[in-house]
């Protein structure tokens, strides 16, 4: 357990980067690249949510609210204040700073929300976070300076594959290292039995707020990348249903397993596309009455099957080998 394992993660990311660059030469077109980019953004969102829902076990339903803060703050900085352009190489550091500013703003909101609410548990916390997520969204909906209900438009397309991959790598590395540190152990203790954790002297509220803030920070980064990928930040893009989508990734991948979140973010993003185009081609080939719009049925069916036959998600609480968190025994 003493081996520093971040380099291993670096190797995987570098390998993925190189593979995509090679595939670009042989027909890996912009559509595939976009799906890869979107998947990586979801990796950031899912892994950061997993810190809150999985590792410290607090059920949050408002993750996209934090992403909205990141998206709007970083989008305002790059679009409204500095008018940065992705065609100027010197503007990229500015973009990175804007992203970090978005993350910090989201973290501050996370702390502000965390203190009063984290005393709540389970269902109650879920409802409160759901409410806060919607409040954040509605606030942006009513600020005319950032476009109000029309959304913040004309955001420069800074989110390239390399940038998103780099941030996804940082997110996974930081959260995994925290999960495996003494802090992470304390968080897991809180998840497993909060009363017992409190009794052995773990500052449960403090850890919850910290986890909330950190999860919100990376959600803010993810939101910023999302806005700079789609070139628009729109209040309805951060609604409850999008938070649920990220939540599904966390649960399908396995609550508490970062590897699971990474895999599920990729699998579910790709699956949606595959089902849609596969079903429409099937329809045009065979004339079946089931078209591309039926993808949601199959998608939901797959999720139900996963939950029925692998309640713990694809990975359970396990991590990919070489980055093992010691497994907990099944209860």
């Amino acid at each position, binding site marked *: 357990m003493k081996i520093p394992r971040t380099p291993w993660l670096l190797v995987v990311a570098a390998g993925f980067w190189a593979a995509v660059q090679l595939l670009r030469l042989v027909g890996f077109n912009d559509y595939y690249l*976009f799906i890869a980019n979107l998947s990586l953004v979801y990796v950031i969102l899912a892994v950061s949510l997993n810190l809150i829902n999985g590792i410290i076990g607090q059920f949050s339903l408002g993750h996209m609210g934090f992403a909205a803060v990141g998206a709007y703050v970083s989008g305002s900085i790059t679009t409204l204040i500095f008018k940065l352009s992705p065609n100027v190489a010197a503007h990229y550091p500015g973009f990175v700073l804007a992203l970090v500013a978005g993350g910090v703003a989201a973290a501050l909101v996370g702390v502000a929300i965390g203190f009063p609410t984290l005393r709540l548990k389970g269902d109650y916390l879920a409802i409160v976070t759901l409410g806060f997520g919607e409040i954040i969204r509605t606030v942006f909906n009513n600020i005319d300076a950032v476009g109000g209900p029309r959304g913040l438009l*004309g955001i420069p397309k800074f989110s390239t594959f390399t940038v998103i991959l780099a941030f996804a790598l940082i997110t996974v590395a930081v959260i995994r290292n925290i999960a495996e540190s003494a802090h992470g152990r304390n968080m897991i203790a809180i998840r497993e039995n909060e009363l017992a954790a409190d009794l052995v002297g773990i500052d449960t509220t403090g850890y919850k707020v910290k986890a909330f803030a950190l999860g919100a920070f990376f959600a803010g980064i993810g939101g910023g990348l999302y806005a700079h990928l789609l070139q*628009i930040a*729109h209040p309805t*893009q951060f609604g409850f249903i999008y938070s649920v989508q990220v939540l599904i990734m966390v649960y399908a991948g396995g609550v508490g397993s970062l590897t699971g979140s990474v895999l599920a973010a990729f699998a579910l993003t790709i699956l949606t596309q595959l089902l849609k*185009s596969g079903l429409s081609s*099937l329809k045009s*080939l065979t004339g079946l009455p089931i078209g*591309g719009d039926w993808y949601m049925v199959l998608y939901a069916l797959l999720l139900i099957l996963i939950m029925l036959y692998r309640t713990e998600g694809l990975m359970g609480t396990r991590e990919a080998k070489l980055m093992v968190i010691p497994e907990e025994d099944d209860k």
Partner: protein
Amino acid sequence: MKRTLSIVALALLVALALVSCAPKGPAEIVIGGVGPVSGEAATFGKSTQEGCELAVEEWNAKGGLLGQKIKLVYEDDKGDAAEGAAVWTKLIQQDKVVAIVGTVMSKVSLAGAPISEQYGVPMISPTSTNPSVTFSDGKLRDFVFRACFIDPFQGTVGAKFAYDDLGARKAAAIFDVGNDYTKGLSEFFRDTFVSLGGEVVAFEAHPTGATDFKAQLTKIVQAGPDVVYISDYYNDVALIAKQLRELGFTGPLVGGDGWDSPDLVKLGGEAVENGFFTNHYSKDDTRPEVQDFVRKYTAKYGAAPDALATLAYDAMNIMLDAIGRAGSTEGVKIRDALKATDFAAVSGRTTFDAQHNPVKAAAIIEIKGGQQVYRTTVAP
């Protein structure tokens, strides 16, 4: 059991993946269509799809375009900006479409527009009213057009109609403060009405989701207007009209295309009589394009076309007409042909202005005896 299931699921996925890589047919012109077929705006996406399909079918029946058959690839954007961007990239990169007709929701069109610009693939959005779709940040999006009139236009036409046809000299307006659409309409109504020489005696905002408008309406009635402009959607319009009539106002009401629902009369009853609204077209208009389209659409889909189907049909026809005139499927040539469009569409003879918005007349519909009756056509 578990293992069999996973194997079956995996096999199905692989099969789907293979199917989606199936070889393409013979030489044909591929046009992309986009609309929210699933999600909260699903009926909009369906109507849009039907409009697109009908137009393509007609062109193919007439022998296609540039000597080739036209193939429509219609994609679902779920009403989601991320999915919109994915669909746009897919249509352009995978399906190699030469042009795109889509989509309904402005935020999704806004995600698609920069992609159309990037690859030089022309697009027409049938129903996205946000001005930034075609003209953003003081810059024209060269390859992006739209087939519907934008919000300012309806307010302008509504004011002209109230001033010229109804002979009103004093007007009042009420709108939803949290909704850009109603706010925009009312502001343009006010500005045009004043510039025509009229007077706006009351300009009242109500909060989103309100059901009691008495405070605002009392002020309006006391100001003594000849006409009240209500830019809300039909459900709010019905409530406002009822309360306005209760307060004793008997004059005409004017509004925008948010009124266009059969439910307006059901909810509003007597109160919405003597009401007029601007719309994209009226199915009672006697122009042959309109009658022809309404007949064909009704025969094929068993229901009268709504505004979304009509505008999608128009957008597709304008696009195919432009490709025909361009004599090429090259993006730049289609774009130039689009700029020179002068097409007799169902929703009126259409040309494009410098910001790629359509220049066409609006139909005025009157609520009379519980029916929507075509009143007149007003040019801006």
